[in-house]
């Protein structure tokens, strides 16, 4: 194994033993091989930059490197955006450690050296984020390399295997060229992605959100502070923002839209699918800090004459989030809320039992104009997981779920 710090400023000689220059950077070509160092950038004493390809590198060690060709057959370096440069793009930059779900800064990059038919190949093993690497960076070029190895070896290394490293590139075009995928990141829990997002700068957040699929992006966004959500959505292309908004729970979407300037949120609503936009628009009609503004319109409702079987059909076709399935609501022909049945009781009852026999007694609900505090009190008093919200004629409008109340309480603290 060899560290990038040890390779930096390494003297390079050509096949005849003539000094070519010093190694300045390594480049990987992700379109061919995501791990192998494809070219070595060398600065000559005349300050020219040369690019030695991996086939031209005979041998490389902590002492020196030697090419298989004479100096005049090495080509000049032309900047290439599709190459990943270790020093320029990785070293000292922030990356996402997908395994530990954290944002860290790279202190060093570790390589594997392997002789391959007639030349030597380097391939990336991991990035180093520990104290040992920091010591190496500090002493590099001042103290002999083997001494540095001994000193840095005293500290337990902290490395992240390259497979768990997610680079953050804010230029979308370059992201494609470098084949940076966010698949592994997308597998994390949305709450963890949200925590990572909060550590990043605005452009980096944008890069991450834009690379996630709409659903994951929406879930992760729902977990970060509303103000940050608004900033991010505003900086995204309007269509992508609208797609993400559609996937968000309507109450969250309404909250963000309220945070945005009126013209922007009107534009986004226009870009959203009609059905989703309508739900959000209805929610926007409610005064801030009321049950109406807090509730979601994603809930399961069936006619009051339905049986357990009917409720199960309702459940099957329900597309909303998991936190909304705990309670099923009954309404009459005037849309008035007449009962609520918990999922647990439905599971235990016979298929032909009328739901009216299973309702929670007494029925607890709240007026859409009631304030946040009243909502919290109801949850606390009756140990609720969900609270239906009605208008002045007792028609069911939406449901406040426990997660939103918890957020409210935590925010207040």
């Amino acid at each position, binding site marked *: 194994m060899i560290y990038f710090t040890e390779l930096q400023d390494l003297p390079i000689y050509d096949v005849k033993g003539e000094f070519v220059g010093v190694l300045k950077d390594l480049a990987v070509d992700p379109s061919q091989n995501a791990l192998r160092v494809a070219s070595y950038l060398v600065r000559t004493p005349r300050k020219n930059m040369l690019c030695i390809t991996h086939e031209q590198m005979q041998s490389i060690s902590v002492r020196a490197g030697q090419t298989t060709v004479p100096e005049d057959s090495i080509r000049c370096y032309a900047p290439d955006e599709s190459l990943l440069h270790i020093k320029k793009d990785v070293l000292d930059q922030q990356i996402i450690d997908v395994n530990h779900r954290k944002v860290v800064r790279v*202190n060093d990059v570790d390589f594997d050296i392997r002789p391959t038919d007639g030349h030597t190949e380097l391939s990336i093993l991991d990035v180093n984020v520990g104290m040992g690497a920091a010591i190496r960076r500090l002493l590099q070029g001042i103290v002999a390399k083997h001494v540095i190895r001994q000193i840095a070896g005293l500290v337990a290394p902290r490395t992240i295997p390259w497979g768990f490293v997610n680079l953050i590139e804010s230029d979308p075009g370059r992201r494609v060229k470098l084949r940076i995928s966010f698949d592994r990141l997308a597998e994390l829990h949305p709450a963890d992605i949200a925590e990572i997002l909060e550590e990043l700068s605005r452009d980096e957040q944008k890069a991450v959100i834009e690379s996630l699929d709409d659903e994951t992006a929406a879930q992760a966004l729902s977990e970060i502070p509303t103000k940050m959500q608004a900033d991010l959505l505003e900086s995204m292309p309007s269509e992508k923002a609208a797609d993400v908004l559609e996937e968000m729970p309507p109450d969250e979407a309404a909250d963000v839209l309220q945070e945005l300037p009126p013209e922007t949120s009107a534009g986004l609503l226009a870009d959203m699918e009609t059905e989703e936009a309508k739900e959000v628009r209805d929610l926007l009609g409610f005064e801030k800090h009321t049950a109406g503004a807090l509730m979601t319109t994603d809930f399961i409702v069936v006619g009051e004459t339905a049986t357990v079987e009917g409720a199960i059909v309702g459940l099957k076709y329900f597309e909303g989030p998991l936190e909304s399935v705990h309670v099923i609501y009954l309404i009459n022909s005037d849309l008035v809320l007449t009962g609520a049945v918990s999922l647990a009781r439905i599971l235990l009852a016979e298929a032909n039992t009328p739901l009216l026999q299973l309702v929670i007694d007494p029925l607890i609900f709240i007026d859409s104009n009631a304030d946040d505090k009243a909502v919290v009190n109801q949850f606390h008093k009756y140990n609720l997981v969900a609270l239906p919200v009605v208008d002045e004629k007792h028609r069911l409008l939406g449901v406040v779920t426990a997660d939103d109340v918890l957020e409210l309480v935590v925010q207040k603290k």
Partner: protein
Amino acid sequence: MEKKRFQRFRTQLLVFLAVVGPGIITANVDNDAGGIYTYSMAGAAYGYSLLWTLIPITVALIVVQEMVARMGVITGKGLADLIREEYGFRITFILMVMLLVADLGNTISEFAGLASGMGVLGVTRFIAVPMGAVFVWALVVEGTYRLVERVFLVACLFYIAYPLSCFLAHPDWTETLLSTVKPTFHFQSGYLYMIIGLVGTTIAPWMQFYLQSAVVEKGVKPRDYKYSRWDVIVGCIVTDLVALFIIVACAATLYASGQRDIKDASEAALALRPLAGRAASYLFAFGLVNASVFSACILPLATAYYVCEGLGFESGINKRLREAPAFYSLFTGLIVLGALAVMLLSEEKQVPITLLSQVVNGILLPFVLIFMLRLINRKDLMGEYRNNRTFNIIAWTTCVVILVLTLVYGVSTFFPTELPFK
């Protein structure tokens, strides 16, 4: 129509209030114990004759702070982050170690200011300093971000103590006004050193790091940058107004009665008593205590923040001790060392530490300013928000002048016999 205009004004006001804070707070921390001492000394030794320097100093401060705030808004990253990404680990590390040394010295002088200010109010430093340290630590660690920011903004209001104290000293307002706008210059080494001291105390390296991080923390959008700029400008002007009142208060009393050599800021407070009355004296001391506690809060916090930021440790008061051990050790360590130094070391023994920190500050400032100017001209970082040619000329000139002055100041601290006020 009228209503619409009012609504627009109201929205703008709301946005401004949401953005405001970093600039004003940073600028006020600048008037810390060391600053108050320098201003008192300037007033006591040279009367009104140094007031004119405040206008160019304010302009220089605005030029520098505006750039930092702009970088914070546009890049969304702290200055330490940007330096690390651009100049690598070693330079960042050296910079951070130097900042740590300089800020430890500054923290000690804040606690010394607290001790001497409370001394005037009749409280011994063996009670004042530990209580101050515990208050500062608990406020930052236990308080929420909103609470902390509010406490800080209230502390900013308490700087009113200086204008009040100044009014009680009955200065000559005509002369104050004239001296502020009309530059006078004396080719006298002491006078020159005093000017350099004023610049050095006003434009410090740590402020740039703190301001940029605070702006980033606020999450100001590029669209709202104009409000941030006002935050910075208002902050800088308020700071130097406070400085003006301190200088004038001392000029009207100490200078006028011939007490031209004072050893610390509390001495100025004490000297005010027979000349301007007990109230003026207490107000002056209260101002000193407020400024010291305020800065003793922000300095260690800011230092812990950007050292961790630059070196890649986890940081933030919303993290727990186990998650961010380096951050909490730095923050707590600075406060504890600062407080202990003031309680255990005699004043003579504190002098070399303060001197060292001033020298380190002087060495650091050129690097920080040059890094800043290079970063803010980078197209890939700043895009259309980078400096234009005119602003670059102003900025480079300002920085060169500051650099030359600080270098002279740094050298002069090694030859204290040259100073007339020792």
